[in-house]
């Protein structure tokens, strides 16, 4: 997993609440047995017209945001299905940071497994960030994970909270399974204890 330290990019505003994972990646793209190549499917039903051509109104089709690595979105981003194809599609498109007032639990968790930083901010800060994002290529945001800080185009800052363990893993690109396997003795001790339960 690619470590996440700092990121500077033009943020793309997606002013929709309850963006669900069906919206992020519709089900027809879930038939893959790979993790890669899903970027073209990101937000497919909003991004493309029925004939497959681009919908010019959709934010990521506008010139300023085609290479955005930061997405600023309305409340409760990533609700619905557990599909990890959602962060895979975001990552494959190039988005490594999503900012919202809240995230659905499973999506939030899935982001960290893929080197994507989901940032929770207050409604007031989100409004400010939407304003910054509306300025298009004239404005960039810098996200500094170490400092837990977003710096806006005019030098204003927003600080954010993040769980220290998740931060550590993200900054170092650590593999969870490797970390857990270091605790193998403890897992086996737990399983020995379980054997006393005939039903479990």
């Amino acid at each position: 997993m690619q470590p996440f330290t700092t990121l500077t990019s033009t943020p793309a505003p997606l002013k929709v609440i309850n963006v669900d994972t069906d919206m992020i990646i519709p089900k027809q793209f879930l038939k893959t047995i790979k993790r890669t190549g899903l970027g073209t499917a990101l937000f497919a039903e909003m991004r493309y017209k029925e004939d497959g051509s681009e919908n010019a109104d959709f934010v990521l089709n506008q010139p300023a945001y085609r290479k955005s690595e930061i997405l600023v979105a309305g409340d409760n981003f990533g609700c619905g299905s557990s599909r990890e194809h959602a962060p895979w599609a975001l990552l494959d498109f190039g988005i490594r940071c999503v900012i919202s007032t809240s995230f659905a639990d499973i999506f939030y968790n899935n982001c960290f497994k893929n080197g994507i930083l989901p940032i929770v901010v207050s409604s007031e800060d989100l409004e400010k960030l939407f304003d910054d994002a509306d300025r298009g290529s004239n404005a960039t945001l810098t996200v500094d994970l170490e400092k837990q800080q977003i710096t806006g185009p005019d030098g204003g800052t927003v600080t954010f909270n993040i769980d220290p363990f998740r931060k550590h893993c993200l900054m170092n690109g650590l593999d969870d399974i490797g970390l857990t396997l270091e605790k193998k003795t403890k897992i086996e001790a737990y399983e020995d204890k379980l054997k006393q339960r005939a039903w479990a």
Partner: protein
Amino acid sequence: MTATSAPRTLYDKIFDDHIIDQQEDGTCLLYIDRHLVHEVTSPQAFEGLRMTGRKVHAPEKTLAVVDHNIQTTDRSKGIVEEESRIQVEALARNAKEFGVEYFDELDIRQGIVHIIGPEQGFTLPGTTIVCGDSHTSTHGAFGALAHGIGTSEVEHVLATQTLIQKKAKNMLVQVDGTLSPGVTAKDITLAIIGEIGTAGGTGSVIEYAGEAIRALSMEGRMTLCNMSIEGGARAGMVAPDEKAFAYLKGKPKAPHGAAWDEAMRYWETLRSDEGAHFDRIVRLDANNLPPIVSWGTSPEDVISVAGSVPDPALIEDETKRTSKQRALDYMGLTAGTRMTDIPLDVVWIGSCTNGRIEDLRAAAKIVEGKRIATSLDYAMIVPGSGLVKQQAEAEGLDKIFLAAGFEWREPGCSMCLAMNPDQLKPGQRAASTSNRNFEGRQGFKGRTHLVSPQMAAAAALAGRFVDVRTLG
């Protein structure tokens, strides 16, 4: 491994009981008792194991089934769609290679992963259960701690039989009173989501309690827990009681003999202690609850069947207002339209929310001896599992549905997420017993109204929504 002697909630007890290791910041390594696997969210996880040379740590605690992708028409000649077939074949191969038990598309025990778990007695009270599917919350109906995970976590559980977790908050949903005839667990859950919103349970585990919950059958409790995720809660649970034990007794994978008696002694302790702390309590009165219908593109967009489409212009917050207007535009509805005046094209009954035998019995009771409206394009019943289908056929329900003009299909997820050929066409409007009315969920530009099986059945006869309380 009790963390404290203070009164604990049901969730606290099960969580504490599964802690293998706890870091200073509260991050826990949790033991996972049961892992359900299906074809869509597992191929990359098995591939990860192969690439790192890892094995499945506890294959006997893992059960694989195919459900999301498969056609619900004849499957004796295999899976028709190529991409779906590749994914199904990948699961079959992975199950064999890693020694995991697998129910294929022709197995009578095959069905939607959240229906077969309880059916097989794989789901047990007091256990931790995960699956790469958000509706894993269903299993909480038995007093299990059950929730959905992503594919990276599927790989983690396969490799280690554990999950890295932080304790969630405790939320109590207290439902007192008695439901009116025709009003169901589905209406309770839709009303709760309408009340708390789709992010209302984020970061929480919900425990459902109260007179109306006790009165629900296990099928009803599964419906309720199933949709906890639609209210943002990863897991929902009900303290196990005689109904839960009676449901599980004698199931193939449930304990037998002395092991059953031992399990019962533990299971009977699985309830929240008097005075246990809940971070949030939500109350709902079942007495006057009407049948609920969704009008928009989020499960929080709900209203009484006796109500009308709400007006987004009245919402103050701009992003919320434009989002709800967008939902109305997508649904092709105008504010003020009475819900009972909305004409339907399709009726679909099935899913891990409402594809169990009790759901089919309730729907059959309403349509028996009648015909679906000629204005419908079609109406379809998809049983949740092979065993549900078998039971329904033994009771003659299939004949009732067929005589009424419904299609009677093979088990699977089907149109709930429309990964298989069962899909709405653009603009088609469905009354559906599934769990999500998201844009495009049941087919590109398809329009979904979430309802109970009773409401779906009544809607099929009328070609529009009907208040089931007014039926004789």
